[in-house]
């Protein structure tokens, strides 16, 4: 157990990469690019706009008088600036991106094309509802698929990300308890959970109580039962869990939670493993957020935007936030005010408008493309690939929880590194040199030096075999004492190892004119 996760990197001075230093700092296709504020100029603009005809301003005497300090770029300069930046990034299209718990599957470009249809992209959330029946149709259709896949009763479609969905689901639970006149203040969270679970529960005033994991990496129903007091509002459980294992006792756990008058919240981060294989509603779940950017392939975009609609059981469905979608004689209609017919018990409003429409279209395109058969195949391939990786590496890397089948991700710990003087982080950085994005490291916290590999269904067997080969070679090199390969890594990335300690100790969070005093933020 390493509850701290990983510490910040502080790289040692390392030897130079091979070859002479270039005069420009560029290295062939690896092109250095200054900051926008170094390449742009305040008087330059890349947008041609005509000055309006003379008019009298009506700004109430609040006109801006000082310059803003925003540089501009001509169009060619802008194109080159951002293209160069993009080339310093690794994406799914570059290669395997096996981040456990993140489900970095292929992002089909058909989804992008569909989301950009003017009928979806160029529609305002507050247009008269008679003019947006197709957009409401997207929400209705997406909801139907999600409900069919989960066996649940209602959808809260407005949450804007997974954590936002968690917040919505937990608020629904709180609202349901309040509606029945109960004040419960404890939420049970297994220690293997994502950090968002305890953060969400505490944000809305719950006290978080941790449930330890069994030696096999799963939650013991007896631990849950022992913790279930009349004060417990909910259990938050990720299933499959963050160790990549399916909680086989989930039905028993759900029954115990319900018997205690509490609700069962499921974190849907790992839904990809069970899509079309089991309905969470049949397992006793009351609420689960679904990360459309994981299971349903909407692009991660360097960290957002995501989308986190929540499916709700019959007990919680009435508490879904506004806007709610209803069908009547005139077609589909949004109920936008709390308390109106169709939203009498709504928990409130999660955000200004109707959720992540652009992501709904993309997710729906993925659903339509796969269909019932393709989705089941995708889940099976994702699980097969994860188990294949584990089976191919278990003789050179250490597997913490024995031989139970993995689900969609394969978990390793750092026991196999014992005596090498190397850490999980060193292995991750060496993997960068080999042309891969590293796996998730130091999560889940219940395993020391965790390495969590999620290949998804999008990888060919040839790609998996090459990746396995690279990890095997690294494992042999580590055990053979080839330390510099690891400690100096990455050698070939646009940057060598970065000093995170320095970044946190004296934060520089924005550009300032070089002549100015030291940076803000301290």
């Amino acid at each position: 157990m390493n509850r701290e996760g990983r510490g910040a990197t502080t790289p040692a001075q390392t030897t130079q990469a091979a070859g002479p230093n270039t005069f420009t700092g560029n290295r062939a296709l690896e092109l250095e690019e200054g900051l926008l504020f170094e390449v742009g100029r305040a008087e330059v603009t890349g947008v041609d706009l005509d000055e309006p005809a003379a008019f009298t301003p009506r700004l109430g005497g609040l006109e801006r008088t000082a310059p803003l300090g925003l540089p501009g770029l001509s169009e060619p300069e802008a194109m080159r600036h951002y293209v160069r930046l993009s080339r310093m990034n690794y994406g799914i299209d570059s290669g395997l991106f096996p981040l456990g718990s993140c489900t970095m599957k292929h992002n089909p470009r058909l989804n992008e094309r569909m989301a950009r249809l003017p009928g979806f992209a160029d529609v305002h959330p507050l247009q008269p509802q008679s003019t947006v029946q197709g957009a409401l149709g997207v929400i209705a259709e997406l909801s139907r698929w999600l409900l069919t896949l989960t066996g649940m009763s209602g959808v809260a479609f407005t949450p804007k990300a997974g954590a936002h969905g968690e917040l919505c689901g937990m608020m629904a639970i709180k609202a349901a308890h309040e509606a029945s006149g109960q004040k419960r203040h404890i939420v049970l969270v297994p220690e293997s959970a994502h950090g968002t679970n305890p953060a969400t529960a505490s944000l809305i005033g719950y006290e978080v109580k941790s449930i330890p994991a069994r030696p096999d990496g799963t939650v013991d129903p007896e631990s849950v039962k022992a913790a279930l007091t009349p004060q417990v509002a909910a259990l938050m459980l990720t299933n499959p869990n963050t160790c990549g294992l399916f909680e086989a006792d989930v039905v028993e756990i759900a029954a115990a939670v319900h018997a205690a008058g509490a609700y069962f919240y499921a974190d849907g981060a790992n839904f990809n493993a069970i899509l079309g294989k089991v309905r969470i509603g049949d397992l006793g779940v009351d609420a689960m957020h679904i990360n459309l950017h994981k299971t349903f392939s909407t692009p991660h975009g360097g960290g957002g935007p995501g989308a986190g609609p929540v499916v709700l059981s019959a007990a919680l469905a009435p508490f879904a936030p506004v806007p709610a979608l209803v069908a009547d004689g005139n077609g589909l209609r949004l109920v936008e005010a709390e308390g109106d017919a169709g939203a009498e018990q709504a928990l409130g409003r999660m955000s200004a408008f109707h959720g992540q429409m652009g992501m709904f279209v993309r997710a729906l395109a993925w659903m339509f493309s796969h269909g019932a058969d393709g989705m089941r195949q995708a889940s099976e391939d994702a699980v097969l690939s994860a188990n294949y990786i584990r089976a191919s590496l278990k003789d050179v890397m250490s597997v913490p929880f024995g031989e139970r089948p993995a689900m969609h991700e394969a978990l390793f710990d750092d026991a196999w590194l014992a005596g090498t003087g190397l850490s999980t982080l060193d292995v991750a950085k060496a993997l960068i040199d080999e042309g891969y994005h590293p796996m998730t490291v130091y999560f889940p916290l219940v395993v020391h030096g965790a390495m969590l590999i999620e290949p998804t269904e999008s990888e060919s067997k040839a790609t998996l075999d090459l990746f396995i080969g690279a990890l095997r070679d690294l494992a042999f090199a580590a055990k053979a004492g080839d330390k510099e390969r690891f400690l100096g890594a990455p050698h070939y990335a646009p940057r060598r190892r970065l000093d995170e300690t320095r970044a946190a100790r004296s934060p520089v969070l924005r550009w300032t004119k070089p002549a100015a005093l030291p940076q803000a933020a301290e």
Partner: protein
Amino acid sequence: MRYLPLTPEDRADMLARIGVSAVDELFADIPADKRQTALPDLPLRRGEMEVERALSRLAARNVPAGSVPFFVGAGAYRHHVPATVDHLIQRSEFLTSYTPYQPEIAQGTLQYLFEFQTQVAELTGMEVANASMYDGSTAAAEAVLMAHRLTKRGKAVLAGNLHPHYRETIATVSRYADLPLESLTPVPAGGEDILSAIDQSVSCVVVQSPDVFGNLVDLKPIAEKAHAAGALLVAVFTEAVSLGLVEPPGAQGADIVVGEGQSIGNALNFGGPYVGLFATRAKFVRQMPGRLAGETVDAEGRRGFVLTLSTREQHIRREKATSNICTNSGLCALAFTIHLSLLGEAGLTRLARINHAAACDLADKLAALDKVAVVNASFFNEFTIRVAGNAAEVVEKLAAKGILGGVPYSRLAPQAGLDDLILVAATEVTTDEDRAAYAAALNEVLA
């Protein structure tokens, strides 16, 4: 299935190495009586052409904003986005990358976030900004929570002219976090009295400018009164382009500035995804929610960027985290920063002037009508009209005439008893003809 590379032969080989005979053995931990063997209620896979057809049919049932004279705003605005922006945000390496947890191969994302943070700080007149939030309304809710953490006081005061959806979003989070809230009464013509609501019990006062009716609000006296009472001023905007022309909230004494960045670089998308902007004073940075990119050096001493101060965040602090948020609106922030880089100061200022001029022209045209009054003394690109009749019905009748004429305030706040007000926005995409057509149609509808 076109997205699945494994062949039946591959699957057989892989099963053999794992040592199981069928893939279902890998799902053995799922209780056998709960497993699904098929999905009978859903259609089977479809080719690209068929999917395109099905979704295009749905899209065709909407009226795109660009197909009609269009004046709808109220928190989301139709602006022209240069072609370059959409091309660049679809670059593979931007579109298909993840949160930059491995900074050595995510310098592209990290550098643009650092540039974005600087732009947002400059634009708002603040010292620091985060790497974006879900949208303006959720950013406002986070600002209220942050003010509570900073002042250790419970009560937030919300201006009556705050966008009702923002008020509800804040109210929802506050209610479940058990924090009291005081919402003032809307004053469509502006000039509401916020000062008298500020006292020693207040954590922050939340004021929008331009407000939901379009009025510009002088924040300076509110900031003074708030600071004298030990409270913070949270300044909100829903139209980022206004900052090209209006004095930045930071220069008026705001402590936290939050707003919607959709109108720079991002499409309307029926309400999302959008991009929330969040800026504050440097001394408050450790209580700021969300992601932050920071500058550092690599092992060779070269400048680089990393996510930093993450000890505030949920993946480290769990139940003690500053916020439960673990993402931002990366790609929307990229669209924002590219569009703003193309505009630059000169372009943004001119764009703001064009918007203001268009709104002034439309206000004059509508004010000339018999049964219409413009309620604002000041505005940027959106103002409020009072019509002789029910605003919601008037807007529907305009839509039937092929004009999307704005948002009835009663749609945002049905309980407010303000049923004769329409919020009307005019941006650079409206033409002289559009504005004339609107005035003519409104005149007919009200006749």
